[in-house]
């Protein structure tokens, strides 16, 4: 990796900003770059005035901001290619952006780079009902795919809670998950083919019509690559037939730990729900204020358990699930009265993060996974840590796959609150790792969890990640400073966090 590390300057004061290391020199001449990009883009597709750049300074994680040097809004693949080539020639970093709903700062701009928005690529190119696939542009919203194929009795299974807004390109880049991923897999299991442009402007297509292609599985490589390897310009997604019946059971508990135990019991009984989600009291109240779904607002926790398949199978499983809920001490459990109520139950769950915005001005959404059997224990520990830190934590998460989303409520206008929040967040993630889990479930590493990567992976594993990146992007221009920490960074981070008297990465030289 022998490149010289320099840092993006101009971090706004007062915001905790992770300095983004860039493996290249500053652009020699901003004006020259603007002129070059103006030649390849339509007139309104290049933003360069601060006034216009500011709203692009952050994604869904607004605590991290960095003003991009320029924003490009191409609407053809040829324009994207031209932007990449122009930037590559000049050694200018490029950060891809979909809908900007990411929660790990993946689309955080680089101050001496171009932010490349794919939002104008919002067309569904082809629907192949016979083969159950759809060929789409990267900016198409996740939900728009299911809506467009609903009349054919099909849908696209991965459904992040942000599905109304997030782009399929962003889903691929983050390997997004969602409520239905427990049964139907993550994004990586539901796509068939990808086309992407390398920073040098080469168009590469990976995957294919056949289910298994010879050679390395490059499709899997690209999925979750967080914009570090290439810019995705087309995706073929797999579609599933809508189940004959889908029903949801809502169960209320007077104790979060009981709900946690019920999750383990359901999975332990060999049932594979289409979704198994949990919300605690704070989240229930916030979501109820928005959707009026009739959630029990006094419950300490609710579980939403969706069952789908053929009618008899679903009926049988409903009975089983309700019995388990009863045994685990549910205070009530019932199915949705009709399709409208089922939709409402899910709408509340899916809107729960932003709905928490009704309770506090800001929240910090964590994303870690743990083995399901530790759910009850970890939730209790999070509750204790929340009390110690004096910051409320709302829990909304994909309980079925052990993917936690503690939302730490804070007030960014209060000095010191964000720092305390970040410390609590780091402790929660370290707890996940300690019980055998990981630091990212589905929101990606981005810039937010880059330090925790040092805890999750050894120095040699990180070196392998860098080697892969180098193979696609030797100059390190695509989304620099995200997802994979440099070893130097891990050394610095280790110096700050001394664990049990032992420094992390003791074998690394410190600066």
């Amino acid at each position, binding site marked *: 990796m022998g490149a010289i590390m320099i840092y993006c300057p101009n971090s706004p004061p007062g915001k905790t900003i992770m300095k983004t290391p860039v493996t290249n020199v500053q652009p020699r001449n901003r004006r020259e770059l603007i002129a070059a990009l103006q030649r390849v883009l339509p007139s309104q597709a290049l933003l360069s005035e601060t006034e216009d750049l500011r709203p692009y300074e952050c994604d869904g994680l607004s605590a991290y901001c960095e003003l991009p040097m320029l924003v490009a809004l191409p609407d053809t693949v040829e324009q994207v290619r031209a932007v990449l080539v122009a930037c590559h020639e000049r050694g200018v970093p490029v950060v891809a952006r979909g*809908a900007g709903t990411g929660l790990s700062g993946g689309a955080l701009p680089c101050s001496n780079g171009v932010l490349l928005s794919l939002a104008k690529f919002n067309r569904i190119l082809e629907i192949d009902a016979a083969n159950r696939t759809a060929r789409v542009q990267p900016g198409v919203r996740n939900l728009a795919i299911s809506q467009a194929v609903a009349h054919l009795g099909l849908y696209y299974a991965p459904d992040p809670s*942000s599905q109304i807004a997030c782009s399929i390109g962003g889903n691929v880049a983050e390997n997004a998950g969602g409520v239905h991923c427990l049964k139907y897999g993550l994004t990586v299991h539901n796509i068939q083919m990808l086309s992407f442009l390398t920073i040098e402007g080469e168009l590469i297509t990976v995957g294919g019509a056949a289910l298994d292609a010879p050679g390395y599985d490059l499709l899997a490589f690209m999925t979750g690559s967080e914009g570090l390897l290439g810019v995705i310009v087309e995706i073929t997604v797999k579609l599933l037939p809508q189940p004959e019946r889908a029903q949801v059971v809502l169960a209320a508990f007077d104790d979060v730990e009981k709900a946690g135990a019920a999750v383990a019991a359901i999975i332990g009984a060999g049932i594979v729900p289409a979704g198994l989600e949990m919300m605690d009291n704070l989240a229930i109240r916030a*979501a109820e204020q*928005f959707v009026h779904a009739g959630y029990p607002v006094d419950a300490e926790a609710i579980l939403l358990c969706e069952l789908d398949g053929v009618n008899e199978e679903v009926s049988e499983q409903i009975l089983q699930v309700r019995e388990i809920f009863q045994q685990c001490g549910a205070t009530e459990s019932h199915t949705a009265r009709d399709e409208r109520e089922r939709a409402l139950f899910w709408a509340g769950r899916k809107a729960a993060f932003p709905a928490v915005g009704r309770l506090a001005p800001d929240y910090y959404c964590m994303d870690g996974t743990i083995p399901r059997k530790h759910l009850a224990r970890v939730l209790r520990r999070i509750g204790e840590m929340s009390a110690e830190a004096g910051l409320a934590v709302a829990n909304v998460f994909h309980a079925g796959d052990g993917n936690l989303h503690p939302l730490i409520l804070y007030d960014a206008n209060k000095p010191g609150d964000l720092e305390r929040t970040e410390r609590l967040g780091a402790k929660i993630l370290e707890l996940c790792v300690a019980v055998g889990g990981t630091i990212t479930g589905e929101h990606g590493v981005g810039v937010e969890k880059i330090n925790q990567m040092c805890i999750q992976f050894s120095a040699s594993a990180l070196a392998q990640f860098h080697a892969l990146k180098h193979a696609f992007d030797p100059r390190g221009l695509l989304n620099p400073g995200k997802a994979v920490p440099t070893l130097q960074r891990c050394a610095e981070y280790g110096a700050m966090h001394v664990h049990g008297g032992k420094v992390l990465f003791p074998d690394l030289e410190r600066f």
Partner: protein
Amino acid sequence: MQTTLSDSLRSTPLGQEADSILRACVHCGFCAATCPTYGLLGDELDSPRGRIYLIKQMLEGATAGQNTQLHLDRCLACRACETTCPSGVRYGRLLDIGRAAIEQRVRRPLPEQIKRHLLRVVIPYERRFTVVLRVAQTLRAFLPPTWRRSIPPPQLPTSWPRSSHERKMLALAGCVQTPIAPNIDAATARVLDCLGISLVRASGGGCCGALSYHLGAQEDGLEFARRNIDAWWPHVESGAEAIAINASGCGVMVKEYGHLLREDPSYAERADRISAMAMDISEVLAKENRAALAPAGIGTARIAFHSPCSLQHGQKLAGLVESILESAGFELTPVPDGHLCCGSAGSYSLLQPELSRQLLLQRVLALESGQPTAIGTANIGCLAHLQSRTSVPVRHWIELLDPGASVVSLRDEGAQVELTEPTTL
């Protein structure tokens, strides 16, 4: 979101209101998904989240110039974003505050100023508008088709019921609705008459003030509000039950009088009362026993309902008119993406013609997709705008319930609309 408004701004009521709205936004981006302008342009700056950010930086003291103004101008104020926002961000209010602030900072080019001024001094005044409309209608036949289509053909007034009931509700005098479609008020009066309610026109009232208020002339807008309050008040004191409004764009404004005039000691209390009494005509009907209504077109008419933004997003009454029409026996055709604006949006169709045209074409395609015999809507602006692009008759839905009307006869009238350009995107 974090905000750093200056202390001086934060000490004013408006500053506090803006700050609290800004802070409620958690920057999730959900709202962009249902924003018509983001859908067309794909630029964060033309999304609600982007506009909130533009307003935020302006109020925080950063340079805000023509670009900020452009993106705020492009906003339809349709408030679809408010319906979508899980965090309850009151975007519409923030936009008003933002627009007033940018108006102070950025001078518009002269032709633009003149255009806006003309809109403000003609449209809200019924008599002035009538003169302009009648001249246009006279010249209609001689104009090129594209112009001709945007001028509604003259409509003859129909009679109001003579009977007087004990139960009384007040009508809004309004501005453009009577000159364009006098039948809407008359039909409303006839429908209410069937239910044993008299609709009363109070003298002295006029435009609701929304047009001026949203065109950067907030004081003018409030003046219109005060005039209406003065006109209605004696009737309120003598027992009128409600203000029954049949233009949803005006309804949303009247419902906000209380909030907008809260700092005006001589009007605050009355404004509050008036707002509490304001009801969309659908809210009125929903509460009444409608068995006495026997609409003419039932059984034959298939209706596509276009729910105006001011009805579904502004007044949060999505689905209400649809359920009334269905319970009256009409068949409703499906309308894809029914949350989207038709592009009329007050003066938007005149100020942002290109975006407005694209939205109109999209909406007409969606409304026609279920092959309706008539299109129903709830606001005069949408009605005229949609009719300019479709040969399917567009009517206020209350006209469909009017015991005196027949949907078939409405159809012939609609067919006069010449469509030379194909309705495609």
